[in-house]
């Protein structure tokens, strides 16, 4: 059972539908207590860093998630959900993230303020990208900020004006800047691979 963190912002339906398509059961988690009933967690997210961090705080989900991550239990942050692992973001300088990844998110450096669309993802050999050959490795992105490419634990980078972190992994703690739930067959493959890292 995957718990999808619902902190009252963003669109969770596409994540739910992609998991359902893959036969992975999921439920929405709206408070820290809900974490007791799930085996893995997805922190999705769209919108602004500060608002999301604030909502995690007022729902008490932040302490629950910090504990979850501290126990090295399966976690996948998607898009803003990956950025929230960082300690801060230039998007909302006064807000604090979960702080599991040292460093801050910075604006993308491309021609547009938002990096929206498919892009090539160069990945290191990792189970998460198993079966996705380099030359077909395209994923869908929608974001204005990202973690730097040189961040420790980065296993995949992409480039929009400048390189940025596309995927992060440290044991069972994973994060992706792209949207696997919207990246067609590659995205489904990625989610299936992720499931295999914990559902053994």
């Amino acid at each position, binding site marked *: 059972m995957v718990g999808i963190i619902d902190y009252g*912002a*963003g*669109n969770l*339906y*596409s994540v739910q*539908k*992609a998991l*359902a*398509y893959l036969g992975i059961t999921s439920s929405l988690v709206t408070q820290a207590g809900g974490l007791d009933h799930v085996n893995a967690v997805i922190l999705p997210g*769209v*919108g*602004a860093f500060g608002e999301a961090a604030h909502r995690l705080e007022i729902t008490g989900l932040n302490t629950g998630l910090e504990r979850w991550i501290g126990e090295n239990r399966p976690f996948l942050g998607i898009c803003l959900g990956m950025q929230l692992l960082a300690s801060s973001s230039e998007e909302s300088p006064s807000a604090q993230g979960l702080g599991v990844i040292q460093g801050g998110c910075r604006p993308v450096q*491309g*021609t*547009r*303020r*938002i*990096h*929206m*669309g*498919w*892009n*090539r993802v160069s990945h290191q050999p990792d189970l998460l990208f198993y079966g996705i050959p380099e*030359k*077909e490795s*395209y994923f*869908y*992105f*929608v*974001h*204005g900020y990202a973690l730097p490419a040189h961040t420790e634990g980065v296993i995949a980078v992409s480039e*929009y004006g400048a390189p940025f972190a596309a995927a992060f992994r440290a044991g069972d703690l994973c994060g992706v800047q792209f*949207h696997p*739930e*919207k*990246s*067609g067959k590659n*995205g*489904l493959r990625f989610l299936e691979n992720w499931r295999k890292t914990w559902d053994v």
Partner: protein
Amino acid sequence: MGCVRVVPCLDVNNGRVVKGVGFQNLKEKGDPLLFARMYEAQGADELVFLDVGATVESRKMTLKVLEEVSSEIFIPLTAGGGIASEEDMRSVLRAGADKVSLCSAALRDPELIRRGAAVFGSQCIVISIDARRVGERWHACTHGGQRDTGIDAIDWGKRCRELGAGEILLNSIDRDGTQAGYDLELIRAMSEAVDIPVIASGGAGTREQLLEGVTRGKADAVLLASLLHDGKLTVKMIKDFFRKKGVDVPC
């Protein structure tokens, strides 16, 4: 520069795909789910569904279409047509859309853009601008292009960006369905005026013309309907052509 997107557009009326010329004379083309499956198989990067029916019943059927498509096709879906409130946005997102496209309602109530972006994020808010050429400039129009608001389309695009729009879907009413080529001046003017992605729509009839929209018009994406629905081109043919011409497109 990210990859250029090729985006099929499905105009839906009462749950069926339709297409007209110059926004008029709608002709039925078929089942949206079958079209969606076909375009996904061809390598479409996103899909846009616009409910062009004016009735509540048609809107409901479009929600059903979104439900069906989003349960089996995992690429970004944009829904538009008659969305006038945050509640409308919520209902199409709940049905499976990832983005909403606003047109007339945003012109009537520009603050709707700000409110939508605050709740759902900028990336979720696409502003569809139906532009009609008036002399050297273009005016934003509503009601399927029939009503001229008198508002300069490029200024409107900039305003939308300031209010928090994440993307602009730019339709040339003059070229829509003509297959006579894009209004490149319009696309370029908008593309240079805003720092959010611009999707070019209306008029492309060949792969060369689509490419021009990207290279000369500086569009971030191309939206297609008739060309694909009629089988004159496939998404794959367009992407292969783009790739051959040095434009980065995903597989």
